[in-house]
């Protein structure tokens, strides 16, 4: 956990309103787990709060963020140029753990929308761990799909779109019966997480990555409690075991 000015290696739109930003700096060497996030200070000085963005990929000396423009901050980010520096606090949070998995275990990784982002690094780690991974990825429509090829290199990918413009029609729920996993990891909108939480109530190893508005990002302000008010999303999460959280 540190503050560093990370240099922008690239920053480009890769799907409708979805951007990929590659960052370089010493902090990358302390990133060793998927599911963690970076807390980015915005260029616009009116935007006081940092923005939490998941680490989507950790590479040799760079890391990759995938973000969707939803408001002023992400709009600001989309304007940053190669060579600019981003004031970054991180890596933060308690990421995905899977020491309980044995090689050859079947794992299901479920993501929706921009929630797919942190699952790419997770997928890489699971594959490195020797697991068989099925990805169920949901998007609004064809234009919103990103990283499809990258995921296909890691395992089986079941693609769903709300409007059926690519893959199966419907949300990720339509594909759940195609898999019988030992462990499930999910990130995406609350309805998706609720579905995963209830669909796998027979499984112990179900992990959900949550979002909540944050101020400090490090556990000091109690701004980001989960709904049960017993855990902080930023420090105790953002990844929780399914029984730990009410959605």
């Amino acid at each position, binding site marked *: *956990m*540190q*503050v560093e000015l990370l240099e922008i290696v690239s920053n480009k739109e890769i799907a409708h309103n979805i951007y990929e930003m590659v960052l370089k700096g010493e902090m990358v060497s302390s990133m060793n787990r998927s599911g963690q996030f970076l807390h980015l*200070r915005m260029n616009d*000085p*009116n*935007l*006081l*709060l*940092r923005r939490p963005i998941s680490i989507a990929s950790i590479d040799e000396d760079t890391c990759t963020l995938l973000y969707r423009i939803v408001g002023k901050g992400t709009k600001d980010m989309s304007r940053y140029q190669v060579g600019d520096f981003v*004031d970054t*606090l991180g890596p933060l949070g308690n990421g995905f753990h899977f020491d309980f998995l044995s090689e050859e275990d079947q794992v299901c990784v479920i993501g929706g929308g921009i929630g797919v982002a942190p699952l790419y690094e997770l997928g890489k780690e699971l594959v490195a761990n020797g697991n068989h991974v099925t990805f169920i990825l949901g998007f609004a429509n064809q234009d919103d799909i990103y990283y499809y090829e990258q995921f296909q290199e890691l395992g089986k990918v079941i693609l769903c779109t709300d409007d059926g413009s690519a893959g199966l029609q419907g949300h990720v729920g339509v594909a759940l019966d195609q898999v019988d996993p030992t462990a499930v990891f999910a990130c995406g909108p609350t309805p998706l997480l609720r579905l995963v939480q209830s669909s796998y109530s027979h499984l112990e190893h179900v992990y959900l990555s949550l979002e*909540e*508005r*944050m*101020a*400090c*990002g*490090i*556990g*000091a*302000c*109690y*701004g*980001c*409690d989960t*709904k049960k*008010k*017993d855990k902080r999303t930023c*420090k105790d999460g953002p990844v929780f075991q399914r029984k730990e959280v009410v959605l």
Partner: protein
Amino acid sequence: MNRLKVNLPGLELRNPIMPASGCFGFGEEYAEFYDFSKLGAIMAKSATLNERVGNSLPRVAETPNGILNAIGLKNPGLEVILAEKYPFLAQFDVPIIANVAGSSEEEYVAVCSRIAEAPNVKAIELNISCPNVKEGGVAFGTDPEVAARLTRICKEVTNLPIYVKLSPNVTDIVAIAKAVEAAGADAISMINTFTGMAINVKSRKPVLGNITGGLSGPGIKPIALRMVYQVSRAVDIPIIGIGGVATVDDALEMIMAGATAVAVGTANFVDPYACPKIIDGLEPRMDELGIESIQALIDEVRENRFK
């Protein structure tokens, strides 16, 4: 000579800068960033008698150059704080100002009477101004008589100096300040947050689960400064200036308005190093501005204040 040294009742501070209550927790997290012996003091998160789980979510929202929060005084309660939180801070060579909140006079008294059990706590900040809890909180801070009475009964149960933290959501902050001074307050810290709100135009609903929240950050600094200025002209006890301080110049502006020390809140979230950066920037800036020492500046302001 230490040019940054200032005194508050019960405390000698190596410099006038301290994190503000609620914006630094009980220090555990920020301890990973720097050594607290750098700080003038630490204002700890509000302590209540029993645990408080806090308000419904979301608890923070962003506004133009400000933030809204409605944390709801979440804290683990006095026992845990005495057993774990203040003791954690004892490893650092820095005085702690404990912040006490409550929803009844009895609760304030119960907490105040036990705070001295933590030997590193050198003063109590009485939070009579939290806008984010239904009962009590800000109600104690908007009526001079109620505020004075609370100050008096808390003074009775502790030997620690009592600093009263004022609410800016009042017509006449000078009246409240004078009332608590007359009731025995040893210092005043000001200001807490302004009650504000933000609406999400897509959902047409308030952003905060609590509907309203407390506004803090640089946007409110001009009002905080005016209030510090007015109160410093009306009372003799020292003032800890709070509200929108983010830079060295902001801190100096607070002192020029009449404060003796300065607390930094929201800026810690923007930059975890906000306090040490301001501290490191003070002397170079004082050289530029021809300020010999913070104490000399305070004296100069005090002397001129009735002119």
